[in-house]
């Protein structure tokens, strides 16, 4: 046995297990924390970037849209359906009994001005764009929109009435900047 080994043996008898555990746990803990922070900031690069977020509002001039006409605009890469509803359409939307609906919501709760319905034109089933914006389109059994992918029917308030979609067409956040201009987003 060498001197060095004798020393080693002495040391191994007096190993402070608690100190070792402390060192082990703090080292591992620091590595995990550092790794997690690094991983999170790297994953965050995949979230919407500043320039994407900057494009998240759209202003629309409603003045050229006649009663009964529709307009589709883009907002965050998605179509927004704007419909200038006729008084007939408003009446049927209001006369529908809320409790009969699959996704209960009154027409009032879905508009800021009853003449204007603004909804996200994406079917709540699996993301197709429903028909009903153009003159010749099939508007479905309830006079609103009809999704050709899997046959969901929406009424004149954009509410789901028939078919597989679970929810009403989403109402995006928007405000009337003036009587004729809305700002979506």
């Amino acid at each position, binding site marked *: 046995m060498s001197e060095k080994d004798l020393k080693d043996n002495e040391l191994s008898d007096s190993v402070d297990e608690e100190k070792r555990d402390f060192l082990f746990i703090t080292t591992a803990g620091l590595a995990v924390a550092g790794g997690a922070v690094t991983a999170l900031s790297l994953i965050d690069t995949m979230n919407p*970037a500043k320039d994407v977020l900057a494009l998240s509002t759209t202003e629309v001039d409603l003045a050229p849209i006649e009663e009964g006409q529709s307009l589709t605009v883009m907002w965050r890469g998605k179509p927004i359906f704007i419909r200038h509803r006729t008084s007939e359409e408003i009446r049927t939307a209001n006369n529908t009994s809320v409790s009969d609906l699959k996704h209960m919501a009154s027409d009032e709760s879905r508009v800021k001005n009853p003449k204007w319905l603004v909804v996200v034109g994406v079917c709540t089933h699996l993301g197709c764009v429903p028909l009903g914006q153009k003159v010749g389109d099939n508007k479905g059994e309830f006079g609103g929109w009809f999704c050709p992918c899997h046959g969901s029917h929406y009424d004149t308030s954009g509410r789901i009435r028939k078919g597989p979609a679970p929810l009403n067409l989403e109402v995006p956040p928007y405000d009337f900047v003036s009587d004729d201009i809305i700002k979506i987003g």
Partner: protein
Amino acid sequence: MKEKEIDNSKGISGWIDKRLPVFTFINHNLRDYPTPKNLNYFWNFGSLAGITLVIMIITGILLAMQYTANTEIAFDSVERIMRDVNNGWLLRYIHMNGASMFFIIVYIHMFRGLYYGSYKYPREILWMLGVVILLLMMATAFMGYVLPWGQMSFWGATVITNLFSAFPIIGDYIVTFLWGGFSVDNPTLTRFFVLHYLLPFAIVGVVALHLVALHQFGSNNPTGIDVKSEGDTIPFHPYYTVKDYLGLGVYLIVFAFLVFFAPNFLGHPDNYIPANPLQTPAHIVPEWYFLPFYAILRAVPDKLLGVLLMFAAVLVLFFLPWLDKHKIRSANFRPFYKQFYWLFFINCIVLGWVGAMPAEGIYVLISRIATLYYFGFFLVIMPLLSKFEKTTELPSSISAAVISEKFDNKEPSTSESYVK
């Protein structure tokens, strides 16, 4: 020491291991793997290079999600990464400086191999696979530098691809083929992007082969003496995992310092000017890690010869195991080789330095002398030393080298206390 057996009959891991021996593999290669007990910190650089490769691939994949390989918008898409993408600046700076760190690590790794004779029998293929990795890294780094489409990107790409025009007759065809056109343009950028994304995975493949070749005979060690008994080794875990872990910590501190405090220190400001095919920057230099080879290129007044010498400077490394046939591996026991080695090391630094200087006056002379020594070291000095160099006395074993000579006779019991 005996490897810990994994019980195939027990538990989920046993069930899996019997069918797919992953746990046996990990145990064999990362845990009980017998490793010479005298490795110094220069043996950290292999694992550091591997970790850097992983860092580069992860940040690279994330960058590729934001980057657009089109000459019209490539530069802007990189600026968008810097300004608009969440932590995009961090992502790009890690990747940018990671390339430099990768080369520092790999160069140290190679100089270590050169000093301790790690390329000698029976590790010739291990060394040659390493040179393949170096070549792939150089190609990948060069093409990556082109992607931001700044002035240095564009003119670097032009100059490097034009190297091939030096070859008689076929030269111009090769260059047109590389460009996919008649100048460095959009087709060049898109193919460079594709290859820059592809080659790292090729590197991963060669690294796997490098490791297989390494584990065939195990690591070399500072004495260069073969492992003779179990007492010469210690298990990889925990002894070298913890040593690698400490080295990694120090490395990441240096890396992070560059990224956070001097992210553009190793770069060139001209690359923040969008590429302009009508104007070459006044002073064009490659990235620092290519400078020694660039210096060799410029040292020669003849175009073709310069290009050939530059390629030869890398390719000569393939023949190293047959140029240096001296039986003793470690320079510690080769008094003459040791001196020539350090001169070679300084010579490489000098080459790098003159590579960054303008190609005129005294710099040309220095680069010529340095080029001469670069090749002289491999082609003349090494073969001559193999024949004539007398070595100093070698220790009888790794353990004997570790323990001072006077306790040598009781060696086995000594090593046991390490193995426990």
